[in-house]
């Protein structure tokens, strides 16, 4: 069936550096994508989203890139801080259907 997956289960980044978290999706019809951040012991929190009619969207220190040709989504976090340490999930949907979540990548910021 269709699923959303991540290339790397863990990622360690030096504080102050930029980090890139990747996500592969298999449903070429998906038209909405979200990145969630989940800190230890908490529920997922919305970070940024992007629709399929866009290639790039920027937020505060975060940028999401969408490459529909290869069905790839990435989350870039600039100037990482200790508070960025968390598990990051991508999610996709088609139309107004329910979101499908990926497995997640654990990002660790090294002081």
């Amino acid at each position: 069936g269709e699923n959303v997956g991540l290339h790397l289960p863990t990622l360690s980044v030096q504080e102050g550096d930029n980090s890139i978290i990747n996500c592969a999706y298999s449903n070429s019809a998906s038209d909405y994508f979200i990145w969630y951040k989940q800190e230890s012991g908490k529920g997922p929190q919305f970070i940024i989203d992007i629709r399929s009619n866009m290639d790039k969207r920027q937020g505060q220190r975060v940028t999401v890139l969408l490459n529909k040709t290869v069905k790839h989504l990435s989350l870039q976090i600039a100037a990482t801080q200790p508070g960025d340490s968390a598990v990051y999930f991508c999610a996709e949907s088609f139309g107004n259907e329910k979101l499908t979540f990926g497995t997640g990548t654990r990002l660790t910021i090294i002081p």
Partner: protein
Amino acid sequence: NAGVTQTPKFRILKIGQSMTLQCTQDMNHNYMYWYRQDPGMGLKLIYYSVGAGITDKGEVPNGYNVSRSTTEDFPLRLELAAPSQTSVYFCASSPPDGGTYGYTFGSGTRLTVV
């Protein structure tokens, strides 16, 4: 706004016991969802509801039941707890076009079945 509130935060059950995980939201969202998250894994949809009186099965509904008598509340019932149900349970809600605006999650209920 409290958002999505889940209770309890932690619970230990013995095999065969039953319990209800509570979820309430104050955002007047029509759609509500229950997910489970096993260690090191992603979120799997158990049940969802598109409005009061309407519920549907998700990916992993076996062993669970839900009801939706009001817009605000969406309790999840475990009738005969099994070790395989040890997990963290998250409730979420969204507006009707939730697939296009994302979900708001609660802080989770950590359940251990022994």
